């Protein structure tokens, strides 16, 4: 109970501040402060899970956390705190450039961002499949308001696509959830949606309903995670949303959907259909990784590039889930989120400086803003899995795991996709860094603009060079 209150407290305060029409400049200072406080509260509340004797905490009947979900909870709040701290400088720049649509839009942005964060927190707290579904649908509804921040035609189109595609996709996950409920009624007359009870009686569940339910949930949550070919909403939404919102979408929302898939995969692996829960995610993950790396090659939008790179990482994470390693999934999610948030935040700045999203028109960033350019190189290297960054270690571990479980074909296609993705991303990054821009930079970036991305890159570096990865693997 204490945990639920602790988690809801700060988002409620932010929403109240927004409703009482606190000025924009005050909000820019207050929101980051409050969110770092929220992160501290969550770390404090979830600490017993990692240090205590019992690795789970039950909250009421339908909520609870274990080590994996506690780690995701912390990660989500790190992402939110970094993104919204950076949002302060982002919006200040927008104002300088005169891009702000209306001052009240910024307040509404913070309002929905707080609700969005709370909904994501509840995804990780739910141990009831029904509440899990409700929270994930709530994240769609709240984040749609973030995507619509730009208030122009493109933002509108992206929001509409996002809302409709994800709602219909998620409806299929509801069907899957119902089928799991039906499956449970064959051994527990009243039926249950509690993932712990389902796991305990996994072998007595009706097999046909379990299979169907799993497929539908994979389809539904897979739409939300952006798996090929259900990814159509993702590049549009990520590209049209303001940079801090793109960072939150990519760094935390995708994890929510994958987390739901992970929970269900773990459950199905305990039934007699373990092969289904291995082969389908591994194959689909490989397919997603391969196709998205192809999309990376001919890309015209800077943020679309990072969106497709997110899809590539989603594919890798799904494969890690399919290989039966939630720990590797968590590690890949941490590395991807940290680096991708840095990239989206930097891209927001770059778009402000150059005044365009078009990759063919952005040139000479190194000259316009050396600090920004160097951080961009670090972040891009971290996201493509260059040593010594954390994602290199994790991707290496995933490849080892794949080969040792006999999924050689998957390992080969993953390697090919990673290589292609790396080449494509580095070509694009080099193109925008060097060369001469015909236009004068519209803005001079100071150190404060690269502070948070740089800190995130250092975190990613720590994940690789210190023994942090092994430590996390040990704890889980």
């Amino acid at each position, binding site marked *: 109970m204490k945990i639920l209150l602790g988690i809801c407290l700060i988002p409620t305060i932010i929403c109240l501040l927004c409703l009482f029409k606190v000025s924009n400049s005050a909000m820019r200072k207050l929101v980051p402060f409050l969110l770092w406080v929220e992160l501290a509260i969550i770390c404090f509340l979830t600490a017993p899970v990692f240090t205590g004797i019992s690795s789970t905490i039950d909250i009421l009947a339908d909520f609870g956390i274990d080590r994996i979900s506690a780690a995701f909870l912390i990660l989500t709040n790190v992402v939110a705190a970094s993104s919204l701290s950076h949002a302060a400088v982002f919006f200040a720049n927008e104002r300088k450039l005169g891009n702000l649509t209306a001052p009240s839009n910024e307040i509404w942005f913070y309002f929905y961002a707080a609700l969005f964060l709370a909904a994501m927190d509840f995804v990780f707290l739910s141990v009831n499949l029904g509440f899990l579904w*409700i929270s994930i*649908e709530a994240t769609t509804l709240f984040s749609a308001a973030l995507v619509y921040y730009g208030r122009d035609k493109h933002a509108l189109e992206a929001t509409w*696509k996002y809302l409709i595609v994800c709602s219909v996709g998620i409806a299929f996950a509801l069907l899957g959830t119902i089928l799991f409920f039906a499956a449970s009624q064959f051994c527990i007359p009243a039926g249950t949606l509690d993932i712990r009870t389902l796991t305990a009686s996994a072998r007595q569940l009706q097999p046909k309903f379990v299979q169907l339910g799993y497929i539908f949930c994979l389809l539904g949550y897979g739409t939300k995670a952006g798996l090929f070919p259900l990814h159509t909403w993702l590049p549009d939404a990520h590209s049209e949303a303001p940079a801090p919102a793109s960072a939150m979408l990519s760094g935390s929302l995708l994890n929510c959907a994958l987390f739901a898939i992970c929970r269900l995969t773990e459950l199905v692996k305990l039934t007699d259909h373990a092969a289904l829960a291995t082969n389908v995610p591994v194959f689909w993950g490989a397919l997603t990784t391969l196709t998205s790396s192809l999309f990376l090659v001919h890309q015209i939008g800077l943020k679309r590039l990072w969106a497709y790179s997110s899809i590539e990482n989603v594919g890798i994470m799904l494969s890690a889930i399919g290989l039966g390693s939630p720990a590797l999934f968590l590690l890949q999610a941490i590395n991807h989120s940290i680096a991708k948030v840095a990239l989206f935040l930097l891209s927001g700045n770059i778009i402000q400086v150059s005044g365009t999203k078009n990759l063919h028109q952005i040139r000479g960033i190194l000259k316009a803003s050396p600090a920004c350019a160097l951080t961009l190189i670090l972040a891009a290297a971290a996201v493509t899995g260059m040593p010594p960054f954390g994602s290199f270690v994790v991707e290496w571990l995933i490849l080892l795991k794949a080969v040792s479980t006999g999924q050689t074909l998957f390992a080969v296609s993953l390697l090919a996709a990673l290589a292609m993705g790396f080449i494509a991303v580095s070509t694009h990054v080099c193109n925008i860094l060097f060369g001469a821009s015909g236009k004068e930079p519209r803005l001079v970036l100071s150190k404060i603009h690269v502070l948070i991305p740089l800190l995130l890159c250092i975190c990613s570096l720590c994940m690789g060079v210190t023994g942090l990865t092994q430590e996390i693997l040990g704890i889980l």
Partner: protein
Amino acid sequence: MNLLPHEVSLLFSAVVACLALGSLHLKVNLALFSFQTFLIAVATAILAHVTGDHELYVIALAIFGFKALAAPHFLSWISEKLTAPRDYGAFLPAPLSMHLCLVLFVLSFALARELPTSQAAGHSWLGAAAGISMLLSGLILMLTRRLAISQVVGFLVIENGIYTIALTQTRGMPLMVEMGILLDLLVAVMVAGLLIFKIQKSFEHIDIAQLTDLRD
């Protein structure tokens, strides 16, 4: 074959869903959708009476209030405000999509027959057939219509189908979960409605077939 009263109601509602494909007039579509949802609410109430499960009465009432009354009224209010009485046209002609729907109707019976049933849990395969066929007709509606409002109607029909499957395969989800789902739906319809207003304002139409600016 003995049909139970709630199964009759659900199958009838699946037929109504199929009929809705035959008209491009929004008023007709919304009225048929409203009637279809009313039949589902009736089926829920009948089931509540038969099983003595009082939670189902609450759910039936909530479905009737929100899905059969509020949502169609909200959508028809939008259509009046935006003077969009009928769809701009469908990617499939109406007769063709009705025929397709009939074929899928048969298919859903074949599919539902395969579902495992147990008497103890009160599973009914006819109800599942009705649910699957509603789901599929909702999908056809969403895929073939161009008007943004019709898309929302299609989404609600899909949701009706899923609810029907839940009702007949599991005797309904737990009350708290069902209420949460309805709340989410309510917000989704509201958000979609607001967006439709904005689309009309920026684009001066609500034809989603023309929203194709964003692509790779």
